[in-house]
């Protein structure tokens, strides 16, 4: 670097990559080991998602769509369990369907766990329709008749054999759609179902998709938005049922502070070296 002795800033800005990895590893592990609990502030988008389900009554049916896979489990699985707990507590009937093939097993597992916890009966209180290919094609035709694509559920049994499905045909019979999104399917629900059939929707999204989804909240095309692990923690706080969301918050806090510090150090170092280069160049010219 500039000048012979490696001054303070050169050493600070050239820490090896593996050390950074270890720092982040420690910063995440320690709060988990210490089991630090953190409260979270409730933000308006999550509050309105909560109120959307709170406004329903036992005669209503909600459709939960699993559009994520194990890669986004830490953010969206806690949301699934929190929303299912909220719905089952209010005796709301639940239909689950899946558009991301790799997400079906964890969706089925989450649904089974929470349903047993609240003593719900398959076929009367909740049903799992499984997966169908064709994403938007399925969404559009469910506005006409759900049996066109789903003549049977995930167990390959005809829908009409289930008491709860007898008078459910299309979106007129579904009070609210809850999309759990790790990709673009949230946009599909909004465009091909929300606008086309004037259907009430709330979305739970990963942090990656959150920013792109806010314009649809502001335009009223969705009623509520639960974003990332913090959104899951907020929803768990609202239904007073702490889960994975809240346990992860402390580690999330520490990691964010560490990354902000990295950005600041990196940039201070960057400016210091650039200023030194400019000074050398000016001196060079003068001599």
């Amino acid at each position: 670097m500039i000048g012979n002795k490696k001054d303070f800033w050169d050493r600070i800005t050239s820490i090896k990559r593996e050390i950074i990895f270890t720092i982040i590893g420690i910063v995440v592990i320690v709060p988990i080991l210490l089991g630090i609990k953190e409260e979270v502030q409730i933000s308006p988008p999550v509050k309105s998602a909560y109120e959307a389900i709170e406004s329903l009554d036992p005669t209503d049916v909600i459709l939960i769509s699993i559009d994520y896979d194990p890669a986004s489990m830490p953010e969206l699985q806690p949301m699934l369990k929190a929303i299912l707990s909220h719905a089952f507590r209010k005796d709301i009937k639940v239909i689950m369907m899946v558009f991301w093939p790799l997400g079906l097993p964890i969706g089925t597992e989450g649904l089974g766990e929470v349903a047993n916890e609240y003593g719900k009966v398959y076929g009367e209180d909740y049903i799992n329709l499984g997966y169908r290919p064709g994403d938007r094609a399925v969404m559009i035709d469910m506005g006409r008749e759900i049996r066109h694509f789903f003549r049977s559920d995930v167990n390959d049994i005809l829908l009409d054999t289930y008491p709860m499905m007898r008078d459910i045909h299309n979106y007129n019979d579904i009070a609210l759609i809850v999309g759990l999104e790790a990709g673009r399917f949230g946009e599909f629900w909004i465009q091909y179902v929300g606008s086309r059939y004037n259907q009430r929707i709330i979305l739970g999204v990963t942090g990656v998709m959150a920013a792109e989804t806010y314009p649809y909240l502001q335009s009223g095309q969705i009623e509520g938005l639960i974003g990332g692990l913090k959104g899951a923690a907020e929803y768990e706080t609202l239904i007073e049922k702490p889960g994975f969301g809240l346990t992860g918050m402390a580690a999330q806090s520490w990691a964010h502070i560490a990354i902000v510090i990295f950005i600041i150090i990196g940039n201070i170092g960057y400016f210091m070296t650039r200023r030194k280069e400019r000074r050398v160049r000016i001196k060079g010219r003068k001599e």
Partner: protein
Amino acid sequence: MIFLLILSFSISAKDTPDDAGGSITINAYNIPEGTQRILLYRLAGGDTIYEEVGLISIFKGEYDDASVVDGMEYLYRGKAITEDRAYVAEIKEYISSSPEWFNKSRTSVLLLLILFWVVVLIYIQLAKKNPEGLFIRRLPPLEAMDEAVGRATEMGKPVLYVPGIEYITDAGTLASITILEMVGKKVAEYDTRIINPHFDPIVMTIAQETLKTAFSEAGRPDAFNKDDVFYLTSEQFGFAAGVDGIMHREKPGAIFLQGYFYAESLILAETGYSIGAIQIAGTNATTQLPFFVAACDYVLLGEEMFAASAYISREPRLLGSIKGADLVKSALLILIGAGVIFGTIAFIADNAGNPTYMEIFNKILEFLARAAS
């Protein structure tokens, strides 16, 4: 004496609009306090007894009777049952259902779709006649490409071009191939080496042809080395690790990251920065734009990639789409400006007690897009 008009419970029936027929919509008004259920009865023309059809939802005050036959005439009677008594309401004239040939609630969609498509087709014809005539503004990242290849040549280092990890059907990959052609010509002129790793075999074969033509058009067909355009792997992180390895080994002076990227974009941009290369990125993956902007020297943001490929190739269908979209954008800008002004005036007039503008304003908004119920 204020005459307290207790509005009595009533129902209305109409053929459900914009449907394929076979459905009549019943609405209930002034539903009495404490109503538990509202039963709906129907009398088909010629029958004598009302038959029960279903329950009108108290929350929505609406019921969609989809069990009617087109052309048949019906009468309806609603019975709202409360704690102590039942209120009855009837409709007087017969009503029948019929299918419609055009869904009126979607007129605004039809208008915008036709307008936009006609404009695009016109511009495509214009572009066919006179490709140079259609102006597209300067794109700094495009100009920086020349300087980047030049600098890499000075330092005697190769150029690395990564086309993203999507298939040929993705618009970003298509645009990347066009940009690759331009970079190929520059590399041929400066007589530098270009390394081009691939995620998909089909995109690789297309890239090989593109570079071959670029090199021969620049007058140096022999300088093109086919082995520098190769298939690496189809696994996301395996690809990122492979390209990182190339960066450390070959130490390219200029790196181009053009195409559709996923989460691995961050690994590529970081290693590229750490070996001190000029990085020019471009992607239609909005989620990856932040990482490229923070780590690269120049970035083509989303649509700018498509404008760049239209600018380079002067293809009529690309130019037509860009210019057509531009015209719609200017129309949107004018519409938003006028709408905001009119809306503000409507609000002021409404506060001053004159709601007429307000009604017009809401009608315009409702015409554009139905508000979510």
